[in-house]
């Protein structure tokens, strides 16, 4: 089951694309043409097809099985959305065509914005961020711009981030010069308003709070926290990675949020694609709306108009996040998802996601330990490794053993505030039958781990995957990041 690399089977003179050599002409390259070979192998079309089909067969996807990766929201990706995104009117349109030839694209962006704003009860949305982390950056930049506009740019430079936050939060804040101060974790899994208040002061620019949080809980003091933050002159950034739990049930704008990114590839099911592309629009409160970056679409004299430059805008955009207008292909998919579900379907999806997670929780709570007690969770349920104590089986071992049972592991060792965390998010896409099978399998595995009779089943796992456990230390110690031609065989050895 070793598939060779294209470099091992390709040839420099082979091509899978038929092109005719141009007629003779005088190049205008000013002597800057390439002199050496590039070193790229080519394959014919049949070889290419087989190579990548075989590679795909070594992957696990939502379509092949339950994918309980907490915080990642691996839900069904409808193919209708793929079909829509490929309409020539969307896929084959250039970002710099005359605006008169892309009215439909602007309409789509506007409609998407309307849906996002309605679902969050916020004022405006910056569509262009390319993924969740990029959206965080956008939101925090808007906050920074607002603070600078208030003349507090030098003094307000602290951002509060709970220990349980995604790593992107502190990384984002640090990237643009904020000083990150952690909000310590409590043993109930919630951020407490008094902890926040203790940290607040004229130096605090914002809090970055994930809600529902990474422990799978809705921050039950969110309204109080928002009020405290605002009272202190700071802004409330909400990490929207888990928005999918509450779409149609609660609106961030009602909870005092000033900025929140939305992962279209989680909440609205644009495919994860093995690590992207994502899309991370940011909704903004009225206080931050004026600072939204270019470009944006606005209704002007009854016509949708694209505002591309700061000079054009009545507002005070803080700059630009990316070339062009962002992830159009993802916008189409997300809007297709929202149109399909409708207000009723989206609400139901949130409820089913929460129901499924709690069903798993209730069905495993006697065997698995919960760090914050046995209480309802949102769309994902968090266990820790207390129950594995003294078995010699780690969270990692247990997760890898799941692979042999045909399942993708849950999220492990995150959030960091919990020891040996196991974060399970079944999503609303799973049927009850599928959950029952999953639960039964986990229970069997848990029993096996606890009896300790077959430790190797865990510590050696996986056995039945395309690869056994991989040596990550070796990879990091001596990084081999690209293929290099094998050295010629040495002539004679001693």
């Amino acid at each position, binding site marked *: 089951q*070793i598939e060779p690399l294209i470099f091992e089977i390709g040839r420099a*003179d082979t*091509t899978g694309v038929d092109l005719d050599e141009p007629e003779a002409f005088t190049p205008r*390259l000013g002597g800057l043409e*390439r002199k050496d070979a*590039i070193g*790229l192998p*080519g*394959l014919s079309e049949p070889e*290419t097809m087989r190579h990548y089909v075989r*590679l*795909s067969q*070594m*992957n696990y*996807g939502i379509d*092949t099985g339950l994918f309980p990766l907490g915080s990642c929201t*691996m839900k069904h990706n409808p193919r209708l959305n793929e079909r*829509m995104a490929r309409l020539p*009117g*969307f896929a*084959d*349109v*250039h970002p*710099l*065509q005359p605006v008169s*030839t*892309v009215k439909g694209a602007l*309409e789509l962006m506007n409609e998407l914005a309307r849906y996002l704003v309605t679902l969050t009860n916020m004022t405006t949305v910056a569509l262009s961020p390319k993924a*969740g982390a990029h959206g965080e950056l956008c939101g925090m930049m808007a906050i920074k711009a607002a603070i600078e506009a208030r003349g507090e740019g030098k003094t307000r430079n602290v951002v509060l981030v709970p220990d349980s936050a*995604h790593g*992107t939060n502190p*990384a984002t804040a640090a990237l643009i010069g904020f000083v990150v101060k952690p909000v310590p974790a409590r043993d109930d899994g919630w951020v407490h308003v008094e902890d926040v208040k203790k940290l607040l002061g004229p130096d605090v620019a914002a809090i970055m709070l994930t809600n529902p949080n990474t422990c799978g809980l809705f921050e039950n003091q969110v*309204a109080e926290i928002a009020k405290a933050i605002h009272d202190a002159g700071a802004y409330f950034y909400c990490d929207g990675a888990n928005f999918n739990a509450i779409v149609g*049930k609660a609106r961030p704008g*009602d909870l005092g949020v000033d900025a929140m990114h939305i992962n279209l590839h989680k909440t609205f099911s644009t495919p994860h694609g*093995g*690590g*992207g*592309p994502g899309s991370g629009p940011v909704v903004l409160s009225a206080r931050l709306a004026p600072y939204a970056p270019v470009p944006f679409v606005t209704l002007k004299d009854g016509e949708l108009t694209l505002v591309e430059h700061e000079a054009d805008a009545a507002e005070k955009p*803080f700059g630009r996040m*990316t*070339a062009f207008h*962002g*992830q159009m*292909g993802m916008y189409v998919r997300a809007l297709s998802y929202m*149109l*399909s579900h409708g*207000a009723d*379907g*989206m609400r*139901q*999806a949130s409820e089913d996601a929460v129901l499924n997670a*709690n069903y798993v929780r209730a069905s495993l709570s006697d065997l698995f330990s919960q760090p914050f007690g046995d209480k309802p969770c949102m769309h994902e349920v968090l266990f820790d490794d207390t129950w594995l104590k003294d078995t010699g089986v780690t969270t990692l071992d247990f997760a890898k053993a799941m692979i042999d049972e045909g399942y993708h592991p849950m999220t492990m060792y995150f959030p960091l505030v919990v020891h040996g965390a196991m974060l399970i998010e079944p999503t609303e896409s799973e049927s*009850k039958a599928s959950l029952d099978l999953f639960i039964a399998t986990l229970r069997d595995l848990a029993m096996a781990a606890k009896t300790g009779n077959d430790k190797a089943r865990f510590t050696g796992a996986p056995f039945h995957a*395309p690869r056994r456990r991989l040596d990550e230390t070796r*990879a990091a110690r001596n*990084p*081999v*990041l*690209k293929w290099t031609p094998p050295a010629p065989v040495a002539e004679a050895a001693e």
Partner: protein
Amino acid sequence: MRYLPLSDADRREMLARIGVQSIDDLFADIPKDKLLKDLVDLPRRKGELEVERILSRMASRNVPASSVPFFVGAGAYKHHVPATVDHLIQRSEFLTSYTPYQPEIAQGTLQYLFEFQTQVAALTGMEVANASMYDGSTGTGEAVLMAHRVTKRRKAVLSGGLHPHYADVVKTLSHMASDEVVALAPDVSGTEDILSRIDDSVSCVVVQSPDVFGNLRDLKPIAEKARRHGALLIAVFTEAVSLGLLESPGSQGADIVVGEGQSIGNALNFGGPYVGLFAAKSKYIRQMPGRLCGETVDADGKRGFVLTLSTREQHIRRDKATSNICTNSGLCTLAFTIHMTLLGEAGLTRLARINHANAVKLADMLAGVKGVEVLNRTFFNEFTVRLSKPAAEVVERLAEKGVLGGVPVSRLMPGAGLDDLLLVASTEVNTDDDRAALAAALKEVL
């Protein structure tokens, strides 16, 4: 609802097992007054047919590139992508998989990332490449930050030939991070004096070639001067196909190479998703942003691949990370890799020659149109013309005639006093008829 497998009976049974009365008991942590009682003010669910109709109607209000003579470029290019590419990237196992954190069941993704990194390194002439950025512009922003980390300086010099959107991204990021940026004035002829801006305070010079006006830049003297002053040369490209024909930035001495990969394997998509290519000298590897895939072995000694050097990354290092990037452009890298595999060296270089040949043909033809002056001495598949009327107006008039003739420079650089300039791109998709249509339409309009 077709995407939701639970029936009402299932829901009742599950609530019972959980031990709550109603679904809202599970939402009890939401403040009572904030829990929505009714549906939000949006339409109800729709069947596929209805959704198709709504979105198709929107799509029909746009003019697809393939439907007209098309010469729009300036950072995104219309190329033909083989059907195999789109077929393969839609395979469930690629499309619906996650970032390959579980390498045992993600070797498909990991191996193509390894292939991608190798291809990008070869193409750019660099020692190492990462597993992608969002796009060329954000990659350029990250490259500048990386140069600051490497040099421990915080002043970037941007060439006047850098795509204005790229420059804006760098400026925004630098402003927010309180770094310094020296942006040179728009440089239509590609002859700016950038060398004099390089001194010991500079962390990096950012130079694009072909530049936004289409001129090819010789990077060697810049690299040489940068090296002498301890600054890095960041070489940028927006048209990956050009690397099939042009001396690689790496061979000219670039320290970091960053560019847009859309041209290979990816559709125009009105601007995204695209794929940022990012390569560097290997000594800087621990300062690189983004994911890296590396080779290793499994417990049985079989070759396999894993994400590696993740101690640079946000999920490990948090506020000490080299970047906050997480999800990147996985599926777009796959499209790039497959298309590049199909092309191979023979196909890519020929594709590049065709692009150049078509652009030369077009330039020669437009040079013969009254009111059009071709400004470039050198170019790859895009060049700048000076028109006898404002370019923005001309482009609108051309569009009315069913020809998408290019990008007015004023759209990219308003207020720069370059309103009579038009960027015109020509790729392998342009036919003699297309070129004749543009020339004819220009004659009528000018």
